[in-house]
């Protein structure tokens, strides 16, 4: 059956050519570094290594994190850069993969000679990358929502100053859920670190309010069909709490509607379940009247601040939270502000520390740790924040919106204090 063509590949030949290719690739990667060392470091731009979900299941987030980051960098450069030096964003794809994430951090530190690393949303990538950042002693600013930074599981080089964490978010919102929607709650969440944060901290927070989680339904993150899980929702459920991520989210919400028809419980969802998805998508009509958490209101509100207006225009987002160039291209508006704010914090930190080069990395971290109050401003368009230098985690407002005529209308804004909890770690006591 098998024919042997004349010019057949042999294994040995294949190995040889792969080896040669790898050698060439290694050499070309190495060459620019040699050249770069010739320049004095302080003369060049400040380099921020941006770990981007360009491919993999986080690609929708990655694209908008990129647009926000580029817009923030442009604004900083237009205002004169950082300490008089240009800010340069060096982008590498992490493939939404923890292993690749760690490699990318290493590339930033050793090949690109970046001053800091900056990234990324998916918590497993942060988990995978942070230890490497600590070993290489490169500051790693994350925009991820995970509780892992404040939990003390990471290290002194990893900070999350631009976005609040899940523990804080659910704690701030539990009172609203139990007072307005119901006390018997069923949770549906993705079966990995981020979902487990939701399960653990929301269960605790709602019990503190006198409510009860009657069932927890974990769903594998790669699942594509969801109806079969819904019968596990107990009949007594008053509120269905849902948070899903990844490309299956729209299917999930649609099948939820088909399962319940018009006799379902109240829905309270994290906007993660519909980030980068238009509320006008077919099959989502049943969401009318349901509630969502938003990190930052996607649809323009009546009391829109000047800062939000400026930020929307700079990133290129219209009033409905979609790209100004393509109304079908919906942003990840509830999360991506974190990139904008984090870069501004990096700028402020570098200026406070008199940052000149990688030798000043420890001083930069100390300068950021010393920050506390971050007022609502063009630098912080999402709202007022309070940074806790000991836990490396920021605290801020959360928004609860109701779907009204296909638009998310903010019903309740939590106070910064609502989301605060006791310190679980003091990173400032750790050595550099």
């Amino acid at each position, binding site marked *: 059956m098998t*024919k042997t063509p004349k010019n*057949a*590949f042999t294994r040995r030949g294949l190995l040889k050519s792969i080896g040669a290719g790898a050698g060439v690739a290694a050499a070309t990667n190495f060459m620019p570094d040699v050249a770069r060392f010739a320049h004095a470091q302080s003369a060049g731009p400040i380099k921020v290594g941006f770990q981007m979900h360009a491919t993999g299941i986080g690609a929708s987030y990655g694209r908008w994190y990129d647009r926000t980051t580029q817009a923030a960098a442009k604004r900083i450069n237009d205002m004169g850069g950082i300490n008089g030096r240009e800010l340069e964003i060096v982008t590498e794809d992490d493939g939404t993969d923890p292993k690749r994430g760690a490699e990318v951090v290493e590339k930033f530190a050793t090949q690109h000679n970046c001053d800091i690393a900056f990234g990324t949303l998916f918590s497993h990538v942060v988990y995978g990358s942070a230890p490497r950042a600590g070993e290489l002693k490169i500051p790693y600013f994350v925009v991820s929502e995970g509780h892992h930074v404040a939990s003390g599981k990471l290290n002194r080089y990893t900070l999350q100053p631009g976005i609040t964490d899940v523990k804080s978010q659910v704690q701030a919102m539990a009172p609203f859920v139990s007072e307005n929607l119901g006390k018997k709650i069923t949770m549906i969440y993705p079966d990995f670190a981020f979902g487990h944060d939701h399960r653990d901290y929301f269960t605790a927070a709602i019990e503190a309010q006198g409510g009860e989680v009657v069932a927890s339904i974990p769903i594998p993150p790669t699942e594509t069909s969801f109806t079969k899980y819904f*019968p596990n929702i107990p009949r007594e459920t008053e509120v269905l709490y849902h948070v899903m991520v990844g490309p299956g989210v729209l299917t999930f919400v649609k099948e939820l509607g*088909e399962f319940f028809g018009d006799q379902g419980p109240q829905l309270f969802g994290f906007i993660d379940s519909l980030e980068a998805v238009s509320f006008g998508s077919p*099959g989502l009509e049943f969401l009318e009247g349901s509630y969502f958490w938003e990190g930052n209101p996607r649809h323009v509100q009546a009391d829109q601040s000047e800062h939000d207006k400026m930020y929307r225009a700079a990133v290129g987002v219209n009033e409905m939270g979609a790209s100004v160039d393509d109304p079908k291209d919906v942003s990840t508006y509830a999360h991506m502000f974190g990139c904008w704010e984090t870069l501004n914090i990096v700028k402020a930190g570098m200026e406070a520390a008199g940052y000149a080069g990688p030798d000043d990395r420890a001083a930069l971290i100390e300068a950021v740790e010393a920050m506390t109050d971050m007022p609502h401003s063009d630098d912080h368009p999402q709202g007022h924040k309070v940074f806790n230098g000991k836990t490396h985690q920021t605290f801020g407002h959360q928004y609860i919106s109701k779907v009204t005529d296909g638009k998310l209308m903010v019903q309740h804004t939590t106070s910064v204090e609502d989301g605060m909890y006791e310190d679980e770690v003091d990173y400032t006591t750790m050595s550099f």
Partner: protein
Amino acid sequence: MDFGPHLMLASLEGAVTAAILALTAMGLSIVFGVMRVVNVAHGEFYMLGAVLAWVVASMVGASPALGFVAALVVAPLIVGCIAVVADRVILQRVEYDPDRTIVATIGLLYIIQQTTLMTFGPDARPVEPPFNDRLALPWFELGESGFEMFWPWGLSITSYKLFVIFAAMAILTALWLLMTRSKAGLIMRATQQDSETAQAFGIPVGRVYSYVFGLGAGLAAVGAVLVVPIQQAHYLMGHDPLLLSFIVVIIGGLGSLPGTVIAAFLIGMSDGIISVFFTPTLAKIFATLVVALVLVFRPQGLLGRVER
């Protein structure tokens, strides 16, 4: 939910999975049966079908039904043509050498996937179903006064999902008629049995290969167009169908059409039922275990023929 209605719901969901899987795996099976090519890019043809369905449906725009019908006709045709070109440009050049076609189709997989990411983008895009009524389903129980009918909470399916099951059955029947009753099928079977003798009898084997490759890709695309009103088009959606198709084709027997259908039904239903009552991981373990057992005890698959 009670056990009975829950099982029925899981079976219905499993049947939808099985229907789509049967179409997709059939494409892989035909390509292997006739051409002896293991097409690793098969899942990407599936993905392309879904993505093109979105493109076509949003271009037509008018009514959801019209857009869907247009997508059902146009998307598989385009995907088939792309596959024919890929066969001419790539597979013929490597002379269908088994090792090199695997490597070549892996390359094709990444080219298609990344091109889609660069043009279509990373977002999941929905296609509106032509009709989508929620059908509540009754359940019967032996009560005090004999059988009683009631409507359990949540036990329902949509009319569109039922349509998917029947559409898949119709397409598979048509395919079976094509393979067994038509001249084109005769030519394909002749090429499958002995391509050199077929060529000696004047069958243009090269052209047959191209069309078969196109047909295989087109079948995957049809499955994807049917599924895209349920699950959205996304550039990474080709991965799972590829894996499951391989599992199905190995269990059913490479190149055996009835075997593929039986295996698709088995895997689809077990996936639906096991993942509901136990865990999704166990469903995957079960599928892999069946593959291992088949390979050990019946390497040619359930209905495959032993190579001579």
